[in-house]
């Protein structure tokens, strides 16, 4: 019963609509064409070759089902004549409520009464009014072009330092987009006059590009400053050292002062986001993280014998809790 009702077929997810499309062959394809297309796709999407890849599995099921239908000349003929659907089920013969309701007969149950025509002048005014701003435009009216909206993902460092990206719009135009330094996520660029063309001499619309900035594996933005966790060895922290640290504009040598500790914060002046929009250049804050490293017999021997000059309890502050 369910299958014949328009309402349920609309809701149900169709896994396979058109076996010809699933195999990428035309309706006039020979049985050999079908077999070749099936073997090719089956190899590509076989679940054993794409473990954990749900889409491939789904695709493989569709391809197999399509092959099962199309490789059998009897079934294929029945499908072509519309006697069975892509899943091989008999098509319900009776027209659904929808078939009636969407046609002229459907006016019988129209909310505005069976005699009403679909459209009246007021409706049209509403539709065109909201489509074009105010009232229905005359044929020669100047109409400004529509604004176009896109979104673009930007790499973290391009967002910090600025970059130029060449984009291809859906209509084939290319556009050089200048991503300014210090770009933050959610910022929208407005490219004046790069939107849809105007009609009858109307000005073109604008293109708006919403920027998303991808996170970075080491750096984190904090306004115009950048934060970084810098791993150092025990010796580098205790004795001091010069080490190389990455910055958004390439690595620099950093002096680790002697007697540093895990959590010590070093400021690298001017190594953050470049000056932009009248804002001064930001800084880079490197927080040291002491890495003890692999096990080391000499270190263990030393620690066993070691009596600190001033024994301390690093958890002292927690004891009040």
């Amino acid at each position, binding site marked *: *019963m*369910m299958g014949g*009702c*328009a*309402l*349920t077929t609309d809701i149900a997810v169709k896994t396979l609509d058109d076996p010809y499309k699933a195999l990428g062959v035309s309706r006039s394809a020979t049985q050999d064409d079908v077999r070749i297309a099936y073997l090719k796709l089956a190899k590509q999407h076989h679940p054993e070759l794409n473990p954990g890849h749900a889409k491939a599995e789904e695709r493989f099921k569709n391809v197999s089902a399509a092959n099962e239908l199309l490789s059998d000349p009897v079934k294929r003929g029945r499908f072509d004549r519309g006697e069975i659907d892509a899943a091989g089920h008999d098509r319900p013969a*009776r*027209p*659904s*409520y*929808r*078939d*009636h*309701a*969407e*046609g002229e*007969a*459907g*006016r*019988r*149950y*129209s*909310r*505005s009464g069976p005699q009403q025509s*679909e*459209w009246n002048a007021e*409706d049209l005014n509403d*539709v065109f009014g909201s489509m074009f701003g105010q009232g229905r435009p005359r044929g020669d009216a100047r109409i400004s072009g*529509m604004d*176009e*909206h*896109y*979104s*673009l*993902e930007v790499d973290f460092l391009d967002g910090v330092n600025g*970059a*130029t*990206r*060449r*984009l*291809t*719009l*859906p*209509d084939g135009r*290319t556009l050089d987009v200048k991503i300014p330094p210090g770009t933050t996520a959610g910022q929208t660029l407005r490219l004046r006059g790069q939107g*849809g063309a105007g009609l009858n001499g109307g000005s073109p619309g604008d293109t708006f590009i*919403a920027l998303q900035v991808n996170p970075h594996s080491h750096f984190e933005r904090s306004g115009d400053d950048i934060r970084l966790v810098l791993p150092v060895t025990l010796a580098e922290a205790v004795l001091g050292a010069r080490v190389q640290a990455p910055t958004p504009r390439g690595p620099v040598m950093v002096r680790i002062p002697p007697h540093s500790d895990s959590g010590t914060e070093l400021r690298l002046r001017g190594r953050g986001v470049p000056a932009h929009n009248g804002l001064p250049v930001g800084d880079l804050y490197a927080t040291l993280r002491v890495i003890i490293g692999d096990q080391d017999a000499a270190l263990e021997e030393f620690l066993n014998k070691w009596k600190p000059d001033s024994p301390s309890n690093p958890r002292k502050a927690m004891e009040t809790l």
Partner: protein
Amino acid sequence: MINIDVLITQLSGLQRQDLERWILNEWVRPDKGAGTFVFREIDVARVKLIQELRDDMEINEAAMPVVLSLLDQLYDLRRRMRVLGAAIGETAPEDVQQNLTNRLVNRAPSRLPDQSK
């Protein structure tokens, strides 16, 4: 065009008293012939629809008017869309149709392929 007796024998699981109540509620609106109801094809399909909503989708009779009202509004809109589309197809020059298509399709923000990498 069939009368109520034929309809009841045709649709399994349909009780006369249910159908009469649905007609009284104006969920189904058959024509009134000489002392009996006359059902057009759409009325028959609608009776089946109400049956399926009730039996297969567990929509009880208290909720039925809401569901039917929403469905009627939906089909009103779909008929209007169809009429509008047909009117545009018949009257608007091809470039206007293309322009309209482009605008409607391009309204949603879309992701762009980045060529510089």
